[in-house]
Each structure stands twice: as C-alpha cells, then as structure tokens.
C-alpha cells in the first residue's frame, strides 16, 4: 500500500505523506499502547463521574432546592478551560494519572447530573402513584421504578459524556497521559510528521463513534420494554 495522498513538502518526503503505511505497521505496539491508555482514561473518568453523579442527581431530584446550586457549581467547572484545570492541579498532584483524571471527571458531572434529573423528572406521576399504591418504600420506588424508567435519559447523558471525554483525553498529553494525543502532538506535530497525526485523529473519531454505538446497544439491553416505542434522542 502506498501513501494515500501527498500533501506537500519536498517531493513526497515521508514526513509529509498524509499516511505512511510502513510507519503504521512498524509502530503497531506504540499505537496500541496509546489507544489502550486512551480507552482506560475514558472509561475510568466516565465511571467515576457516574458514581458521583448518581447520588448527586438523586439528591437534586428529591431536594429540589439543591438542584440549582449543584447545576451552577458543575456549570462553572464545565466553563473552565481544560488546559487551565490540568495546570491548577499540577502543583498539588504533579504529573500523574490523578491530575489527568480529576478534570476529566469534573467535566462529566454537568452532563450526567442534568440528564439523571431530567430522566427522573420524566417518570409519570401515575407510575409513581401505582408504585406507592403497591406498598413500595421510597427507596424501592427509586431503585425498581424511577431509575429504570430514567435509563434512556441517563444513557443519553453517558453517551455525551463519553464522547466528550474521548476528545478531552487528547489534551491530557500535557500531563504525560495523553493516549492518542501523545501520538498526535509529540510523535506528529513536534516532528512535523503527518502520519501519527492522521492515525491519532482517525482513531479518536472511530473510538467516539464506536463508544456511542456500544452505549446505545447497552441502553437497548437495559430497557427491553422500550425497544420500539422510545426513540432515543442522541
């Protein structure tokens, strides 16, 4: 396989080929390592985000007066540029995975909490009455009726949070845990070498699409009752 396209540079110099297959096949290990790191950081960030958001979302749903402050706090976090957030942490947590993870988790909170509360709000009062009439405790209602019915909205939030996080992980390259950002910035841009940029960019997008589809599948599995009726907004 030859180069796909020669963008510029001195007569198709390898550095300036958009995609140099021999480099790719020589560096499978490197690409795989970065890809795995990218996936790990994303999964960890979204899982921790969900662990924090679920109780906060339920709390905001029940104690309505807390919803405003919780949203405001997470919205301020969401507004702070990621590069700044990573840098705020470096004096304390250094160049560590923790420094990469904390901002990634913080960015998921606004999206997740909003969707959890919206999902819980969407449960029809009739359903709630019926559950209460069946003698379910408040806790039983939440676990067995309200949260399951809120799954489509919650998963919609998880999908958005995941895709957003996949993009953000590229920036954690600044603290040394960049996943595919490592490939794009350090292997590619710093050396004016296009192939790693192309590979990293393409893999990030493929990852985002794959994650989105997988989560859509998870939602279908979790809510078999809504297979036809509920059209999930993405």
């Amino acid at each position, binding site marked *: 396989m030859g180069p796909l396209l020669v*963008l*510029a*540079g001195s007569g198709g110099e390898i550095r*300036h080929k958009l995609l140099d297959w021999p480099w790719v096949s020589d560096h499978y290990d490197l690409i795989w390592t970065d890809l795995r790191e990218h996936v790990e950081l994303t999964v960890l960030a979204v899982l921790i985000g969900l662990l924090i958001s679920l109780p906060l979302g339920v709390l905001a749903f029940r104690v309505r007066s807390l919803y405003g402050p919780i949203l405001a706090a997470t919205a*301020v976090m*969401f*507004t*702070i*540029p*990621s*590069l*700044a*957030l990573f*840098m*705020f942490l*470096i*004096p304390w947590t250094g160049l560590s995975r923790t420094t990469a993870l904390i901002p990634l988790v913080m*960015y998921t909170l*606004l*999206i997740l909490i*909003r*969707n959890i509360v*919206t*999902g819980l709000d969407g449960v029809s009062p009739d359903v709630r009455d019926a559950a209460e009439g069946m003698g379910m405790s408040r806790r039983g209602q939440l676990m067995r009726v309200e949260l399951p019915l809120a799954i489509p*909205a919650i998963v*919609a*939030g998880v999908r*958005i949070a995941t*895709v*957003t996080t*996949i*993009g*953000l992980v*590229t*920036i954690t*390259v*600044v603290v040394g845990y960049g996943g*595919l*950002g490592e490939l*794009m*910035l350090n292997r*590619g*841009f710093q050396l*004016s070498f*296009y192939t790693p*940029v192309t590979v*990293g*960019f393409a893999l*990030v*997008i493929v990852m*985002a*699409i794959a994650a*989105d589809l997988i989560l859509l599948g998870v939602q279908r599995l979790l809510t078999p009752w809504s297979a036809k009726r509920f059209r999930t*907004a*993405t």
Partner: protein
Amino acid sequence: MSFFADVWDWFGDGANWTGEEGIPNLTLEHVQVSAAAMFVAVLLALPVGLVLGHLRRGGIVAINVSNVGRAIPSLGLLIVAALIWGVFDTPTGFGWVGSFPVFIALTALAIPPMITNTYVGMANIDADVREAASGMGMNGRQVLSRVELPIALPLIMAGVRTAAVGVVATATLAALVSFGGLGRLIWDGFRAQDYPKMFAGALLVAVLAILVELALALLQRAIVSRGLRRGGDRIVREIEAVDTVLDPATAPQS
C-alpha cells in the same frame, strides 16, 4: 501558602505586563482570534439553523452535526490546521483574524453547536403559534423574524454561549501548537517549571472564560423578550426539557 504568594508576586511584576509576552498583549491575541472565529461562525451557523428550522427540513443533519462535532478532538483539529498552514501561507485579507490556522480550527468547532441549537429552538415552536402568525397575515419571512426568532432566542443564545466558551478554551490550546494567546503563559510556565507563571496563566484563562459566559448571559437577558422570560416561561421550559435530553447545549469541551 507561599505558592499563592509567588503567584501574587508574578502578577505584581511589571515586566509581566509589557511587551509581546505581556498579559495585555496575550489577552488581546486570545480575544482577537476567539472573537473573529465566533463572528464568522455565527454568520455561517445561525442562518443555516434558522432556515432549516423554519422549513422544518434537514433535522437529522442539523441535530447530528453537533454530535459529530463533539467527536472531533479540538486539539487534533488545531494540530491539523497548524500543520496545513505551516505549509501554505495565510490567505491575504485574513490579517484581522489573528493566527489563521487557529481561527480556522476555532470556527469549525463553533459552528456545530450553534446550528443544532438554532434548529432545535426553531423546530420546537408550537405549530399553533406559527399558524396564528400566518393567520394574522404574516408571510414566511415575517413569521421567521417576528415570531419564531424571538421565541427560539433563548436556545439560540444557549448555543452561542456553549460555542463561545468552547472557543475561548480551545484558543488556550493554540499554545501547544506554537501560537499566542493566554495559553502561552500556561505552556511556557509549565515547560520552564515556572509554576507561579503557569498558575497565573490558568487563572487568567479561567476568568476570561467565565467573563465571556457572563457577558453572553447578560446579552441574552437584554435581547430575549420579557414575555418569554416570565409569562412565556412555559414555552421556554418545554423547549429546554427537550433540549436537556437532546442536549445540543453541551458542546465539545476543550
């Protein structure tokens, strides 16, 4: 606490307030490229969203464009733009945008959330309202500008705010690919292990982002009709309820 004292001293040092690498000039660079990108992105995205929403056409594209946009890594886009325009020259007539590759990347990132929000804001307007307007003898253009646009404005502004915050954040990353703006302080400070400088830069960027958000929130208050804020709350709330699950309002963060 001595770390914060160092940061304070950094701000107090007159040398950090002058020249090309001074706070005023870097802030100006940051704001210039962000404002230029937002200006062009608004001009491109809003008409598309308004027309598609008015005609109720192309909804799948209009809604999904922000999903696709979210999947595109902002740093990747900056790197690609920087590599391309490191090879080609900045086109003539684009001096006002600041750094051209950064401008292109920022514009590309700002467009999707604004198209989606504008479309959703328009498409969710009650059919009764539109019919009443045309029943009063308004033509399509009048319905669009006098009825639909004002009602959709809160959601349109939500899109503009999301895009603007994303643009200011991404402009910070321009420093990673050797361009100016406040990211320079962060990145140069980081590489020189000058942590007070780095921290000061991060502080300035965070304040700028929050100021932009606040300024646009004030603008929104000023231009959204009072009826929609109070009595018309219901309409807005209904639109927002749809919005939350669709979530066009959360753009690619960076």
